[in-house]
Structures are given as C-alpha cells and as structure tokens.
C-alpha cells in the first residue's frame, strides 16, 4: 500500500508569510495587525470486520488575520498561502474595519504583556506508525475486543489517528511565537446485543506522545467490558440521591466551571459566577489550578492566543474563587489584568483526593454512578443543570445494575458546594484533569 508523500510544513515560509502580511497591513493603513497560521497533517484509519474500512489523509492550513484601524477591527481568513491570496485578505480585513465600531477595549495586548521570552515546550512527538501498521494494530484490537464476550455483536469501528501541526502567532508589536504539536489517538467502539436490547459504548486513549498511549489491547478490553456492562439497563424511580460523576464525565462538569469563569461570559454577564471573586464556590478541600507547561498535557501551550505568556494560575484555593480566566479583551472589559487565557484554560488541574473509585463508591454507599451524559441542558446564566444520564445504581458501596434513560438535575452553584469528595482516578485524556466527583444530593428523574 502506498503512503502519502511527506509534505513538510516549513516554519521559515510561515514566518516570512506572517511578516509579509504585517507589512501589507501597514501599507493598507492598519495601525495594528495580528496573524495566526496553523498547518496540520496526519491520517486516520478505521477498521471493521477484520479489514480496513476507511483511510483518510488530512493536510490543511489556515491563515487568520486581524487588523485594527484605531479602535475598529476587521478579520479575514484564507486557506491558501499564496501572496495574492493573503494580500487580498489583508485588504478585505481593512475594508471591514471601516464599518465596525470604535471599541474602547479593542486592540492588541500591550507590548509589556506579551510573552517574548516564552518557554520552549516539547509538545511534538511524531509517531512513526505507517498506515499499514495502524490498520494491522486496529484489526488486532477489534479481534481482541470481540473475543471478550459472546454478546458483543460487532465493532462500529476501531480507529487510529495521528496528526502533527505547527502553530504560529505574530503581531505588529514584534511578537512572533510558534510551536509544533502532535496528537495521537486510538479508539474502539463496540455494540453488544442481548435479546432485543442493543447497547453501544467505547473506549479511547489520546496523548501528545505515542509512548504515553495506552495499549490497543487494553482499550479493546476496556471497551468490551463497558459495552457488555450496559446490557440489562433499567430505569430508576424519580428520586433524590447522591451522584458520582465518573472522571470522564466529571471533566465535562469542570468544563462548565471553566466556561462560567471565562472572561468572555463574565463581561456579557452571562454567567452565574459574575461578581464571585473572593467568594466560596467549592468546599474547603478543593483547589483548582492551571499548569500550562505540563510535560504531557493535552492543553499545554507556551503562550495564549493574544501572545501573552501562559502561566500557572490558581483559580480556586480552599474552595474560594481567586481568579477568573481572562484574555486581553475580556480583562479590559472587566477592568482587570489578563491571566493569559485568551483561547481557554491550558490544563486545568482539580487537586485529586486520596480515594480511588472503589472507595468513592463505598463512601457514597447508595446512589447513582454516572458514566455517560447526553445533551447540553445547562444554563450558565442561572446555573440550572439538567442532563440525560446513564450509568449504574450503587447500593452497599457496590455496583448493582446498569441504568439508563434518566436525567440528573441540580443547580451548578449548589452542586459545586455539595462536592463530598474528588477521586484520585484522574483522567488525563483532555485539557481538564480531574478524578471522579461525588456530589451529595441531586434530583434524578425516571419512572
């Protein structure tokens, strides 16, 4: 089988393009200009029934240009690196800026805020895996998964993907920063059948460094266990009960905290955390911080989308909200200082407790273990939270049976304060790292 001819992403070329755009913008009358360029390439394969189903090669690039004329802004993007194309884009951005309004908070970061001395992080770990090897590994994974239990009827797909990218940000204060980045993943999606009932579940591993991926055979076995474990799912009676969000789902719960404390929501007053700095929003034992330089962190970056140095912010200490996550624009709106969070939080770390999932179950004794959530029933303005769920009913600290077609509801403010414990079973497969979270009491709707 053939492989795609390697097309190198050329850093020198991107730097030249970015500086050329800056020149063009100045010529066109822009007072300030910023450019971000990303170039990506990679491939993914998926297999099913012991053979390859799809091979997809990815290779793309994007240039985003933002100009300021006074306090007015205009943005354009193109996917083509030719000078004719990006010169036209600069002119289009300047044209737009004639029609936007004077925004007192607009403009680049102040020069002093820029991360000129950003650290050189090692975020790129290319995977030498060939397409043929990826297919063979996936086929083997599928076979291991389907052998695990007779009730597994098929794999929806077993897939491997690998990608590398180069990101560059430059602005007219003379900042130019760049870093290469890789991301690899393996996943296994299975379907189990018992009588008329069919259930689907999956498992995956993802990392910057292929050496840190879990083994395909482990992913396959875990997916098999999860999928079969769902068979025989029942509904629950409508009730109030304690709830454990398994680490994977606790991550999405903490993701809601990140959104609610993000500058872009706060200045628009569309968060329940407006005016909450210095207030207690989590229990005493909780500390939530950011570690942007984490060696194997999927969210690691040296600088943020404004070119501001990423830094180890402490957002929550002993339960008290100490800082919001701000970029330059939202910080100006709120009359605060940027925290280097334009574009988001880079590795949010929820300090783990000392209990593993088993002992968390024992602590809960009787209640619901949520392993998958559905829908996006969250109102971040009010904190009202109501989402579909499936998982397991727990009694005597032990899993009793799978449950589905229920909802869990609460108010995020109350849920955060009602966290009884955080597990030490930290899920490292995302930009938010947390263990499972036990919440004292939530409303469960079912029969």
């Amino acid at each position, binding site marked *: 089988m053939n492989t795609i001819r390697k097309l190198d992403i050329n850093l020198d070329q991107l730097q030249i393009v970015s500086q050329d755009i800056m020149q063009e913008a100045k010529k066109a009358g822009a007072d300030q200009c910023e450019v971000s360029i990303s170039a990506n390439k990679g491939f993914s394969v998926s297999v*099913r029934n012991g053979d390859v189903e799809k091979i997809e090669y990815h290779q793309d690039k994007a240039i985003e240009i933002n100009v300021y004329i006074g306090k007015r802004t205009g943005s*354009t993007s193109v996917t083509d690196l030719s000078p004719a194309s990006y010169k036209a*884009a600069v002119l289009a951005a300047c044209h737009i800026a004639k029609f936007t309004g004077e925004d007192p908070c607009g403009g680049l970061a102040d020069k002093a805020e820029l991360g000129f001395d950003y650290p050189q992080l090692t975020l790129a770990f290319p995977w030498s895996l060939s397409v043929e090897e990826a297919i063979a590994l996936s086929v083997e994974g599928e076979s291991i998964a389907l052998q695990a239990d007779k009730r597994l009827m098929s794999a929806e797909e077993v897939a491997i993907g690998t990608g590398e990218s180069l990101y560059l940000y430059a602005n007219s204060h003379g900042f130019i920063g760049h870093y290469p980045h890789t991301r690899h993943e393996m996943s296994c999606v299975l379907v189990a059948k018992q009588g008329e009932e069919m259930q689907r579940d999956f498992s995956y591993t993802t990392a910057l460094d292929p050496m840190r991926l879990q083994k395909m055979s482990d992913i396959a076995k875990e997916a098999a266990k999860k999928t079969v474990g769902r068979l025989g799912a029942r509904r629950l009676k409508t009730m109030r009960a304690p709830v454990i969000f398994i680490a994977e789902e606790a991550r999405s719960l903490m993701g809601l905290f990140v959104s609610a404390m993000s500058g872009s929501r706060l200045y628009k007053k569309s968060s329940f955390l407006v005016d909450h700095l210095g207030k207690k929003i989590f229990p005493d034992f909780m500390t939530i911080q950011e570690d942007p330089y984490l060696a194997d962190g999927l969210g690691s970056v040296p600088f943020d989308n404004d070119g501001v140095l990423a830094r180890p912010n402490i957002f929550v200490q002993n339960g008290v909200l100490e800082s919001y996550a701000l970029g330059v624009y939202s910080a100006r709106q709120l009359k605060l200082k940027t925290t280097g969070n334009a574009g988001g939080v880079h590795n949010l770390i929820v300090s783990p407790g000392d209990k593993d999932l088993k002992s968390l179950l024992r602590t809960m004794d009787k209640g619901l273990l949520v392993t998958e959530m559905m*829908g996006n029933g969250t109102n971040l303005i009010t904190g009202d939270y109501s989402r579909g769920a499936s998982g397991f009913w727990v009694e005597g600290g032990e899993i009793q049976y799978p449950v589905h077609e229920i909802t869990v509801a609460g108010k995020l403010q109350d849920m955060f304060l009602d966290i009884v414990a955080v597990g030490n079973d930290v899920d490292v497969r995302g930009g938010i790292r947390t263990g499972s979270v036990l919440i004292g009491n939530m409303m469960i709707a079912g029969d």
Partner: protein
Amino acid sequence: MNDILKTVQHDLLDPTGLTDAQLQQVLNELIGRRQVDYADLYFQSSYSESWILEDGIIKGGSFDIDRGVGVRAVSGEKTGFAYADDIVMPALQQAAYAARSIAKQGGEQSIQAYHHSPAHHCYTAVNPLHSLSETQKVTLLQEVDRYIRQKDPRIIQVSVSLAAEHETILVMASDGCLSADIRPLVRFNISLIIEQNGKRESGYAGGGGRFDYQYFVENNLSMQYADEALHQAIVNLEAIEAPAGTMPVVLGPGWPGILLHEAVGHGLEGDFNYKGISAYSGRIGQQVASPLCTIVDNGTLVNRRGSLNIDDEGTPTQNNVLIENGILCRYMTDKRNAKLMGQTSTGNGRRESYAHLPMPRMTNTYMTAGTSSPEEIIRSVKKGIYAVNFGGGQVDITSGKFVFSMAEAYLIEDGKIGAPVKGVTLIGNGPDVLTKISMVGNDLKLDSGVGTCGKDGQSVPVGVGQPTVRVDELTVGGMK
C-alpha cells in the same frame, strides 16, 4: 442546470488553470488498474462573512475564503480519502495517489460517459454577501439593537449577528455524474439578557435559509426575531422549577420537530443500518410509530436551510417518506451505502466540506399534519408539560435513547396552559416515543432556519418541523 454547471466550472476551475483533460486524467489514475468501484472529485469554494453587534457597538466583521478539492476512492466497503486546499495539479495528483491506496491492484474499471441528471431549482443562485451594502448590514444590526432595547429597560445585554455564505460545488464522478450547485445561505441571530432584582435570564431567536439578506429586511423579520427573544427571556425570568418524572408532553409546532430529528432521523441513516447497529435496523415494513405519524425527509423544499438541489455526491435530492402511517418505509442513503444495501441513493449524501467524507445525512425532516386542533390537544392533558421551544438534542442510535432540552415551556393543568417552567432536559427512547404519540395537530410548521446537525465531527445545515404533537409519556428532567 447546464447554466449552473458552466458558471461553476468557470468560477471554480478556470482560475486554477486545470483543464477537463487533466481532471479526466486524475479520475483515470484513481480508478485505473485498481479494484475501485467508484471514485469522485469534489471541488468546493466557500465565501462567508459575519457581522456582530454587542454592547451597541459593531464589535467585529469577518470574511473567510475556503477552497479545495476532496478525492475519494471506494472499493466495496472500503473508502480511501484525501484532499487538498490548493486546487493545483500536483496537490490533486498526490491526493488521488493517497486515496486510491485503499484498493488492491488489478481490475479494469472505466469512467462512464458524463451525463447531467435533471435537478431542481430549490433556491436561486444569488451571492447573498452582495445583497446588502456593508453600511446596510451594520445599520440593520444597529436598528434591531435600538428597537429591542427601547422595549424593555430590563435588557442589559444584546448580541445580534448576521452571517452569509456563498458556496459553489462541483462533483465529477466515475459513474458519469457531473453536477454543480450554487448554494446561498444566510442567518440572523439575536440573543439578549434581561435582569430583574439581581436575577438574570436570556432569550434567543433567529432564522435563515437559502436566499439573501433581503429576507430579514422584508416584513421586519429581524425585529420579529428580537421580539421573540425578549418574550423568551421574560418567560424564563418568571419560570418556576420544572417537575421531575414521566408525564404527558405536548410539543408545539416547528422547531420542536428536533424530536423527530433525534428520536427517528439519525436512527434511519443508512450507514448505521447497513452495520445493523441502529435501534431501527431490520425493521422496514414494521409498525415503528403510532398510525398518526407520517415522517418525511425532504431536500426539495424551496429556500429552506436544509434543502439542496443536489446532494454532495451529485444526486438530486428527493422527498423521502421515511415513516408512513406508522410503518417504516426506508432509510436515508448515500451512494456507497445504497450500493452496499442493494438500493439507489436517496439523495442524502452530504459532507461538511471538501475536507470531509460524505455520509448519509438528513435535509429537512418533519412530520406531516394531522387532524387535531392545537387547543384540543392541550385540553386533553390533565397534568403535563407544553414545550414550545428547544435548545439542542442528542441521540444514541444503538440504544435509541435521546434527549433534547427545552428553552421555553409551560405546565399544563386541567387542560389549560399554566406557569412557565425552567428549560430542563427531556429524555426518551426513540422507538417508544413514536408509539406514544396519541394526537397530531393540523398546524404543521417548519422551523425558522437555525438548525445545524453534527455527526462524526461534521456539521451540516438542516431543517426540522412538525405540527403540535401529544406524547403520552416522556421523562421530564426537572427538580421537583
């Protein structure tokens, strides 16, 4: 259609300098001496813009150009895919070389002679970006902002946006399909926040379709959206806790049709059914819904957001009856999937862009009108929920479980609409829910043109609709 093809060839290919002979050569390389059943090239260019107003200021404007070509080779169940965002011969050849690696050597396929299938004209080939001047665009946003802020002093935040896309596509396939389409798409959104006694709530409304910006100007439609958003925010400010548990739910007409999209639509997409992993697999000809339900996926509606003249494989779209009087009639397919299932494509092969593979997707999915009046339906419920507006939804097509979250809803008590309740999640099981539809209204309405459907990481614009519907049992995820 020939005119459109000529226009598209001129706009899309002429600037690249690629000749027909060269494209033919690429297709030949794709299928020649390989066990390739089908191959296609998908050229696309997309020009899009958006304007946004916040805090009474035009905060931003953006203009984006994306152009490229997707290259696909299909060999039985296998698909090889690559793309290039430079439409030049070396990139195209490299993509073809990569895509065909899926198929083994051997075989002797040839490309069918090109033919045009007759396609519809569901929309006009306008460029919506040019339908208003820049000054008119920003003025429209400012007028809506001023208009709505005057209406209620409790408004503390208004965000209004206008967006348009001018997309041109060309499909060249080894089965002889040579088709093109020019697809306009516009969108208007408003969201606002009101505050009273320290309590804040939001409202949201919008609309759009395959036409130009004049649509929002005519009939003051943009102001109507603003009124709708304000109404929703006020209702939600007064909302009480929703009940928790299983109860009758009356779904209003229009956008609540997202129920059908989640509960039935995805489960009837051919890819899942070929694999036998949908809750609806193997059930063609069976009663899967109450006899009151007829559900269609119709890509041919004039000017609708989910409509297409041709799908992204060049197949003209159709009005596909999915469920008729409760009986499951067909699945939605693309070319590859139809071939594997021994059928012909239903015109549902869609892709987000040239950088994505096509797969079976919905267009405009709705339930046809019944005979009950909406009042009669509400009167029939002793205690339940009347939900008129929704946020998004999600489905697990294998177990059939789906959710969707209410954005505006009321209690029904003794057949009368009562207090507004908070926007909680509804959860159900697709095949069950449809059998529990006991009344269907005579008030079919389609949504205002705001739907975007996500599947496998790909987003495409869709439409939904339905008349007022009574579901005897749905689980309401409230707090009481």
